[in-house]
């Protein structure tokens, strides 16, 4: 297959933001996740847990609450006091509205999905009516003494429970007045703490209110009488989140110690109708605070400061014990944060608020498999480019020649020209960007670095010709009439004739750049596209989907290639289909047209289309074969998928030239080392 020199890069100092809220939508089986940097991500749980959309964050917009309303509308609210509705088609913010109550700590959508309730810093609970295109303030409930940290509707929609500091209030929705006030014990392990914060409440249809608080308690209250019914002390630290299943037969809480507890309503004795809440299962998948939990019909979902999104299927709810029943831990974004200039051997790293440009080192030594070569030159940190303004970077790209860098935030597009003079590097911003280039979802340079392709939200694609220090707008492909879906992925052919663009659900569009026309549309597939690339010479479009299927589509012939048909007929190896991270990048070998290089977070693979396809009986992950193995056996067991799992977690991999690979790893230990220390637990004695 070949020998490569691999630039093994671990200096990409990326730390994902901690998870602040999760909201599960039962109808679409989607999960919205908000992070501490204000980013909101949408995961499609039906599409192999693929992160299909994201809304970039904003420094001043700390999201404190996230919820879905009727018609799959997503709202968030945060400490800047604004309620935000997101446009899930155009991938931008539809509108923001100030609630005029100071920072918003909590938000809840009514059971019918038509009313929105927010709890504010000033102790007010505000009711908004959700109209088809906006929300409208309706009225205030009785003002409370301190901030409202948690809210929950009674399933009938007549009452709400609001958790504040030291007490829980129950409001009547019709009158807006407090009907019950339940004081929470401040005692914590026998010591009176200053305050007891009600981090979460849940209102059940039988009138029970479940509260979780900073003293480590899970408490059951009778809302009719305002009395404490049951108390579970489950942690020595805060219990920060609670989520109840739709059937109200189980709920999940997350603690600051990183433990998630599952509570279930079980019969007191077998065959008895009397049921009680029992703490059934503790899960320790997190090291830090579990800030948010959600309860889907089949799984417990949790996320927190340690940045992992954990989806833990409930084995008793899973009907088929297949690979879907396995625990999922999602740490890295399902999109590329790294781009690479092959010519100059540069890597551009994208962070929340800055970009870093690195030049790879070099070596003159050679070695055999597994050797680490002595470096003749180490990698250099060339550039640290900070964004202007509070907005997070959406996307970035460096041109193949290395002389252009482009990035975009929600409201601004930046293009820089880089000049290299020996070891010096100078940066020049291209000013006067046209008004239509405001926000880009994806940026791509052509292979010869002469053209820039920008996928903006609203679904349009701009083509810009780059000249020395200036640019010229060539063309804009407007979206198909009637669609507003934004394109998230772009691929250009090396000869510069074809541009492929894909949104989240519709098929892949292929444009002819020469005559600026839509060439064809690859039929849409049930699962979203995770990566796109066009092969040199053949102009075959390779598409990877979130269900781990890979298609090869011949652009000139407007049909799937023979190889693609063969592999679809035979099916992928089951181990290939069982991988749980999507393919995020595809590239090609310049000299070997039969090879496709693709990678996900835990492996990279070179598909050699000339070799036979593996069937389910074939040994799929071939370990490095011993040297004494005869050639015959090796040839007999050889199959098209050459997989290496040496580098993980793998965020980026590309071929720099025929014999050189670059692999960017981000070891989890390095991320953990940058997180705040977890709550200390004693190891010795009691």
């Amino acid at each position, binding site marked *: 297959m070949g020998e490569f*020199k691999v630039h093994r890069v671990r200096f990409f100092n990326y730390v994902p933001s901690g998870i602040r809220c999760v909201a599960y939508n039962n109808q679409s089986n989607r999960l919205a996740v908000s992070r501490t940097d204000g980013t909101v991500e949408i995961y499609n749980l039906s599409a192999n847990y693929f992160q299909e959309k994201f809304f970039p964050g904003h420094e001043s917009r700390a999201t404190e609450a996230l919820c879905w309303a009727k018609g799959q509308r997503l709202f968030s609210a945060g400490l800047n006091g604004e309620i935000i509705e997101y446009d899930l088609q155009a991938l931008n913010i539809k509108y923001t509205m100030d609630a005029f109550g100071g920072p918003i700590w909590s938000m809840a959508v009514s059971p019918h999905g038509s009313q929105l309730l927010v709890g504010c810093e000033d102790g007010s609970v505000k009711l908004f009516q959700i109209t088809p295109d906006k929300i409208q303030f309706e009225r205030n409930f009785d003002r409370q003494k301190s901030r409202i940290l948690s809210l929950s509707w009674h399933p009938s929609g007549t009452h709400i429970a609001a958790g504040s500091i030291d007490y829980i209030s129950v409001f009547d929705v019709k009158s807006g007045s407090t009907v019950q006030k339940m004081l929470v014990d401040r005692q914590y392990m026998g010591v009176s703490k200053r305050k007891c914060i009600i981090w979460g409440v849940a209102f059940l249809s039988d009138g029970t209110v479940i509260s979780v608080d900073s003293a480590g308690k899970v408490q059951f209250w009778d809302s009719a009488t305002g009395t404490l019914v049951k108390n579970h002390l489950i942690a020595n630290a805060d219990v920060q989140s609670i989520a109840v299943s739709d059937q109200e037969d189980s709920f999940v809480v997350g603690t600051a110690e990183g433990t998630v507890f599952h509570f279930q309503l079980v019969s007191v004795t077998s065959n008895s109708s009397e049921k009680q809440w029992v703490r059934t299962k503790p899960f320790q998948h997190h090291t830090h605070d579990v800030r948010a939990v959600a309860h889907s019909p089949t799984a417990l979902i949790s996320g927190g400061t340690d940045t992992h999104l954990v989806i833990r299927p409930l084995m008793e709810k899973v009907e088929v014990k297949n690979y879907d029943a396995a625990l999922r831990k999602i740490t890295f974004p399902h999109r590329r944060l790294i781009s690479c200039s092959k010519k100059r051997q540069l890597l551009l790293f994208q962070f929340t608020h800055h970009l870093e440009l690195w030049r790879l080192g070099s*070596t003159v030594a050679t070695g055999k498999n597994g050797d*680490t*070569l002595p470096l003749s030159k*180490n*990698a250099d940190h060339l550039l640290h480019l900070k964004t202007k303004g509070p907005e997070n970077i959406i996307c970035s790209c460096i041109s193949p020649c290395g002389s252009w860098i482009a990035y975009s935030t929600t409201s601004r597009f930046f293009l820089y020209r880089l000049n290299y003079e020996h070891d010096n590097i100078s940066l020049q911003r291209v000013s006067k960007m046209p008004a239509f280039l405001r926000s880009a979802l994806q940026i791509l340079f052509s292979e010869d670095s002469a053209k820039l392709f920008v996928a903006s939200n609203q679904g349009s694609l701009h083509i810009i010709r780059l000249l020395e220090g200036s640019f010229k707008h060539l063309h804009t492909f407007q979206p198909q009439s009637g669609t507003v879906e934004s394109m998230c992925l772009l691929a250009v052919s090396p000869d510069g004739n074809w541009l492929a663009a894909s949104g989240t659900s519709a098929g892949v569009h292929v444009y002819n750049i020469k005559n600026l026309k839509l060439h064809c549309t690859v039929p849409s597939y049930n699962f979203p596209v995770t990566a796109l690339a066009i092969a040199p010479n053949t102009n075959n479009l390779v598409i990877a989907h979130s269900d781990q299927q890979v298609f090869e589509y011949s652009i000139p012939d407007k049909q799937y290639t023979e190889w693609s048909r063969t592999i679809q007929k035979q099916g992928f190896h089951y181990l290939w289909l069982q991988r749980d991270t999507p393919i995020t990048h595809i590239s090609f070998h310049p000299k070997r047209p039969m090879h496709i290089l693709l990678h996900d977070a835990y492996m990279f693979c070179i598909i050699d289309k000339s070799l036979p396809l593996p069937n389910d009986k074939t040994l799929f992950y071939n370990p*490095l074969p011993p040297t004494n193995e005869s050639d015959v056996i090796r040839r007999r067991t050889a199959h098209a998928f050459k997989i290496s799992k040496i580098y993980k977690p793998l965020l980026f991999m590309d071929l720099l030239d025929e014999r050189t690979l670059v692999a960017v790893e981000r*070891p989890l230990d390095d991320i953990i080392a940058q997180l705040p220390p977890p709550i200390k637990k004693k190891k010795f004695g009691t």
Partner: protein
Amino acid sequence: MAALEEGFTLSAVPLGAGPHGLLGVEQSDRPDQFLVTDGGRTVILYKVSDQKPLGSWSVKQGQVITCPAVCNFQTGEYIVVHDNKVLRIWSNEDVNLDKVFKATLSAEVYRIHSIQGTEPLVLFKEGAVRGLEALLAEPQQKIETVISDEEVIKWTKFFMVFRHPVLIFITEKHRNYFAYVQMFNSCTLSKYTLLLGHEEKSVIQRFTASVDRKVISLMSLSSDGCIYKSLIPIHPNDPEKNQRVVRSLLLKTVVSGNVRNGVALTVLDQDHIAVLGPPLPASKECVSIWNTKFQTLQTSKELPQGTSGQLWYYGENLFMLHGKFLTVIPYKCEVSSLAGALGKLKHSQDPGTQTVPHFVNWETSRGYGFGSQNSEQSKRILRRRKIEVSVQPPPSKQLLSTIKKDSEKRIVEELCKFLASKQTPDFHTIIGDIVLELLGRHKVEPSFYPRNALMQLIRTHVLSYSLCPGLMEVALEKTDVQMLQLCLQQFPDIPESVTCACLKIFLSISDDSLQEAEINMESVSDYIDSVQEEKMEEQTEILHNGFNPEEENCDNCDRELNKKPQDTAEETTSCPVIPKRAALLNAILHSAYSEMFLLPHLKDIPAQHVTLFLQYLYFLYLKCSENATMTLPGLHPPTLNQIMDWICLLLDANFTVVVMIPEAKRLLLSLYKFVKSQICICSELNKIEVSFRELQKLNQEKNNRELYSIEVLELF
């Protein structure tokens, strides 16, 4: 294999004065009791196992009972019909049939049927059927005619099929036979014509029937001596149509042909039928059991005094007239197996040892009702159940009687024999009974203390404290430490008071008497060496000499402890009790308890014993702390938790006492010091944990490669 047991005569009074013998034998609502109706005027209630009558009722002179008395299982009353139309209902308390409830009906009654689970049914001679309740509500109601003019009911039977009553009756008209099946859940009456096949000329003499899920198998004994079988569906395809039923030969010539009287047959179970009659023309009359599946004669019994040609079968008894007496012959059928036939299962046939299922059959104690003839399935179960019940007692009963009078040696022998035999489901209760019997005898004659037998019984692992409450009391009385140890190890449910009483004995018993006792030492063997006994002497010296009245306060004691390191050293290494006592105390440590109930009893232990026990616990604690896992070596040693719990319990219960006794105070101080040092270690460990973690991190980083490297990779 089916077998007929020795029969017995039910009544010495000649019955069946009439030429037709008895009218009928019917079950009553109590098991083992049967209503026998003779051909004349009398109904007698018999208890079969006692072979005696329980009651007898007669109708007035001039009246004749025309239909056998039956029992209404729903009310427990008896019903009889005399003079065809007069219904009488009475109960056990009634004496005179003349004064009981009477109802005169408008039509002549053929039979009253009553079986468990449904109300009695009255079948009229004209073929109509009425429920008793409906009939009594309006006795004079008009009864319709179902069968045609010259048809005569010959035989009838009543079944329960899936909880629904089904009545079948056979009529004859000009040598043609018809079967009527009346379903009561759907109120359908189906008529079938019985086709006789080529044996046209033969006359059917007797009928019997059994019911399967969907079909009634009607068996008929013809005058040619053969048994034929006809299958009648319970749920007919077309009830309106007159359907035909053919009969097939089931058994050939079971009785000699051309015998007019004295033949009868009844179905016993799926595969067996009983036939009454002479097998050969010349021979005497006999009752014989035939296996229909294999067409073999299983067994037969001669009835030399002749019989009336009537046969009833209830539960597991066959009733028939033998001469002038009602005779009962118990019948039993064991499941036959090929292995049994070949002799592989021979042991299971040994007398006295029964093959009993290993699960406990909860229904054995509930008594057994007699299944009626119609449900073959339940009858089989019942029969098996009864075998169990009737055969179980002998070995244990024999043993119990042995216990009452024989010598201990003999008892042990018998006990061995009993224990060697197979365990029955209620083995534990029997063992409990035996223990109670032994203890009972001990109470009456105190010299009788069957220690070996009791030990043997405890070792069966089935006893518990609640099964033989007196046992441990007796052992305590006798200070039988070996048995107490055994009980503590075996019984799961010893009350705290008894545990505490054991503890008192274990602590107070002298070393000399302990030396004689045979005690299981497995829990101590590994950490107390046998040389210990010599050290004991020194140990006691230290105890008595260690105290100095001047060193009252803690600091002084501290100093004293520090000053005399050799003392503490000795204390840590030597066990304060001899190994046998240690083994006994370990049994206490292992026993289950609830603090709340134990604490009050612990207060009663004398101070020096408390001290001794504390010393022992302290010793165990030190031993535990010697290794990193905090466990003691050996088989079933006390765990650290048990030791600490008992230390706490003892101190809680006797704190005021302990602080007053000089030697205990000293012990307390060293215990305090030791616990304090342990806490110190833990807190120090907690302090340096961070450093440990840093070290670990450093270690990891060393393994970690550089942030950037160029490596060679070869893909194959």
